């Protein structure tokens, strides 16, 4: 194993080398030394290394910036930080910035040091494999999404013919058909209308299932108020009520996904509802670790436990078309949209007791707190 030791203090460098030489290692250790980041990069170009031991205080770079610069220039190499500062928060920052370990000089014995280095190399390899798999998965998901999108589009072409010509037939030849003939034709027309709805929903699903290109602060209260305004006619007609109970904090997301999430949940709450006064309430359930939970509660017919998973599938219906119209894609869209924003959906419901859908979404926080939060991803 070849170790590149980036350390400007000759005494420290010698100490580390000696510590590692003492260890009866299964693999032979070779050292390459560099007294600055610049020299280290030059040496790396000349001959490759397996792992980098990096001091953060160098003549040409100081502090965590050293690590950032090193990661940028040698993204595939495992880096173990060795420093004089014993600072837990800084150590965690270093790990989030991609260091494999953060060791404090003078506090570590030779054997744990050797082990830390060996493990750093292994961990780096495992992470690389994981990232590779994730990348492949992302590519495949994207392909799948674009496949769904183009197929849904292509399906519209024959559908247009079906829709138009069943109409033409009825218009031109309705007179010569008997009642049953006209009924058949009308069914064809209705089927093509349903097919159109389903294709539209598939397109929405494939569009909103992707991670949005940009997320921003979205005011959930405004979203819900907008949905109420758009549906005011239906709400009045059904003597229903949609209420916002208390404050709704802003989330980090995008408008079209949030409109779909709350629009479908509120719409379902009113639709699958046989109360004399159908009601839907949206309120804040709580906030934990940067995730805010909203509760959308209705006094509708409720959902039996055995269906709690199935209803989130695409085109899943629990009722006859004559009872409740719709394609059965609404909750699938809700779930995919929430997932795409890094959130999730939960359900509490029983038949006859109404339903509460819990919507978990990333809370919008002030930008400076956000920047630290963002770094808590998988360290590459």
């Amino acid at each position: 194993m070849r170790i590149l030791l980036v350390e400007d203090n000759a005494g420290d460098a010698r100490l580390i080398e000696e510590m590692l030489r003492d260890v009866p290692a299964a693999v032979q250790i070779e050292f390459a030394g560099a007294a600055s980041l610049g020299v280290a990069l030059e040496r790396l170009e000349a001959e490759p290394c397996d792992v980098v031991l990096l001091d953060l205080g160098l003549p040409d770079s100081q502090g965590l910036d050293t690590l950032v610069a090193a990661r940028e220039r040698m993204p595939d190499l495992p880096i173990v930080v060795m420093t004089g500062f014993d600072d837990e928060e800084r150590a965690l920052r270093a790990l989030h910035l991609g260091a494999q370990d953060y060791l404090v000089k003078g506090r570590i014995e030779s054997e744990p040091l050797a082990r830390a280095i060996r493990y750093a190399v292994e961990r780096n390899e495992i992470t690389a494999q994981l990232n590779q798999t994730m990348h492949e998965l992302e590519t495949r998901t994207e392909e799948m999404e674009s496949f769904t999108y183009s197929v849904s589009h292509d399906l519209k072409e024959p559908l247009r013919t079906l829709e138009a010509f069943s109409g033409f037939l009825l218009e031109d030849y309705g007179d010569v058909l008997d009642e049953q003939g006209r009924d058949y034709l009308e069914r064809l027309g209705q089927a093509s209308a349903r097919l159109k709805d389903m294709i539209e929903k598939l397109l929405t699903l494939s569009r909103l299932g992707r991670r949005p290109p940009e997320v921003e602060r979205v005011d959930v209260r405004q979203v819900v108020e907008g949905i109420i305004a758009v549906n005011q006619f239906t709400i009045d007609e059904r003597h229903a009520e949609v209420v916002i109970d208390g404050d709704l904090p802003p989330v980090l997301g995008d408008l079209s996904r949030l409109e779909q999430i709350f629009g479908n949940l509120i719409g379902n709450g009113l639709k699958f509802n046989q109360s004399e006064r159908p009601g839907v309430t949206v309120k804040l359930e709580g906030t934990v670790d940067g995730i805010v939970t909203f509760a959308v509660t209705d006094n509708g017919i409720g959902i039996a436990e055995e269906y709690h998973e199935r209803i989130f599938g695409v085109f899943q219906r629990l009722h006859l078309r004559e009872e409740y119209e719709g394609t059965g894609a609404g909750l699938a869209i809700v779930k995919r949209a929430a997932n795409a924003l890094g959130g999730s959906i939960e359900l509490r419901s029983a038949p006859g007791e109404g339903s509460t859908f819990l919507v978990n979404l990333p809370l919008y926080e002030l930008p400076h707190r956000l920047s630290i939060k963002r770094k808590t991803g998988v360290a590459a």
Partner: protein
Amino acid sequence: MNKFRRLTVFLAEDNPDDIEIARRAFKRSKLGCDLVIARDGEEALKKLSEPSFHPDFAIMDINLPKLTGLQVLERVRKEKRLIGVPFVMLSASDREEDVRASYELCANSYIQKPVVFEDFVETIAVLEKYWFEVARLPRST
């Protein structure tokens, strides 16, 4: 413009079903229209190159066989004789590139083919209203 003269609408479309749909949609419109049809890009270009042919309005599918609708548009836009003829591009897709390319080649409008026939009738009515009643383009003949 003489309101009683029948208008000539040029339609470049390869899908026979869509031709029939367009034919019926125009039949429903308030203005009397004669449809002249080309089934592929080459035929479209040939028809539009005839010195005596000057449609009031042209609708072209983007995905035509042989020459695409965009290729036809590019060549037609170089013909002085046809300046002033509104060209509406029609496509099944809403692909950003197609929309942008259409307008870059000076299409007057880009329309995604509606799935529902009544929507198509509506679209034609809007187009006619705009191009024949509002825009009142100066005509060379």
